[in-house]
């Protein structure tokens, strides 16, 4: 099987990340969708109502007055001079966006699998192999050992993803492009560790 040129991969990933943001009005995060599905199983469906505009303003004002009373109506002592109140038509619409349901997550993962399948078919055909395509890997691990190593690697990736609150799509693609400090650090950590580990393994197995 021939891999696609790296630059086409970059264009495709950018198109998907930007397209997701434009169509969904939210950042693409694959592990975030997995977390949402797991949370649904653990904690049940999200019962938050979709609030917007006047009903959200009214609910917020009532909750604020109930929590702070008259203090809420006084400007904070360190606050700058309040800006003139914009005309109602110019005010941004207040909205609480309801999280996507499991159907949307399932559709996303279905598209992910179909996209991967199309990609390999266009590149020369589907080939399933429990291997890392390295002579050293194949020499070192044989039979069920290969599956065990790949499973362990997958578990480590999942653990790291949960620990840092994101994966290569959320941190690496979307977070880094937005210069988010946590994403820059996470991406530097997992890419740096991957590079060092691959060199170390190559040296150890040489």
């Amino acid at each position, binding site marked *: 099987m021939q891999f696609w040129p790296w630059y086409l991969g970059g264009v495709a990933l950018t198109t998907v990340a930007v397209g997701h943001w434009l169509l969904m009005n939210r950042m693409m995060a694959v592990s975030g969708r997995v977390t949402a599905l797991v949370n649904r199983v653990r904690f049940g469906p999200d019962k938050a109502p979709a609030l917007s505009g006047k009903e959200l303003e009214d609910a917020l004002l009532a909750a604020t007055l109930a*929590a702070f009373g008259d203090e809420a109506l006084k400007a904070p002592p360190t606050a700058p001079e309040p800006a003139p109140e914009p005309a109602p038509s110019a005010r941004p619409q207040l909205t609480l966006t309801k999280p996507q349901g499991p159907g949307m997550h399932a559709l996303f993962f279905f598209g992910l699998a179909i996209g991967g399948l199309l990609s390999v078919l266009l590149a020369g055909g589907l080939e399933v192999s429990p291997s890392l395509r390295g002579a050293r890997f194949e020499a070192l691990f044989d039979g069920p050992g290969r599956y065990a190593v790949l499973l362990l690697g997958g578990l480590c990736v999942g653990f790291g993803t949960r620990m840092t609150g994101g994966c290569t799509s959320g941190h690496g693609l979307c977070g880094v492009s937005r210069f988010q400090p946590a994403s820059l650090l996470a991406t530097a950590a997992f890419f740096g560790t991957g590079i060092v580990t691959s060199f170390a393994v190559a040296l150890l197995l040489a």
Partner: protein
Amino acid sequence: MADPPCPHMKSCEMYEIFTFSETLAVWKTRYCQSDYSRCERYQRALKGQPVPVNLLPNGHLLEK
């Protein structure tokens, strides 16, 4: 020296809403920019629990 602000401010949907008016700014001064460790949203995020979009820092859920 002022307390450091909540590290979740940039990603918190409710914080964005608190910037909407002077009346709502009291949530920021009482929670986001001071004692954010008692914020219910922050506590749930730290525990890895889902944070409902309509949850206020004091634990109150906004309803219609």
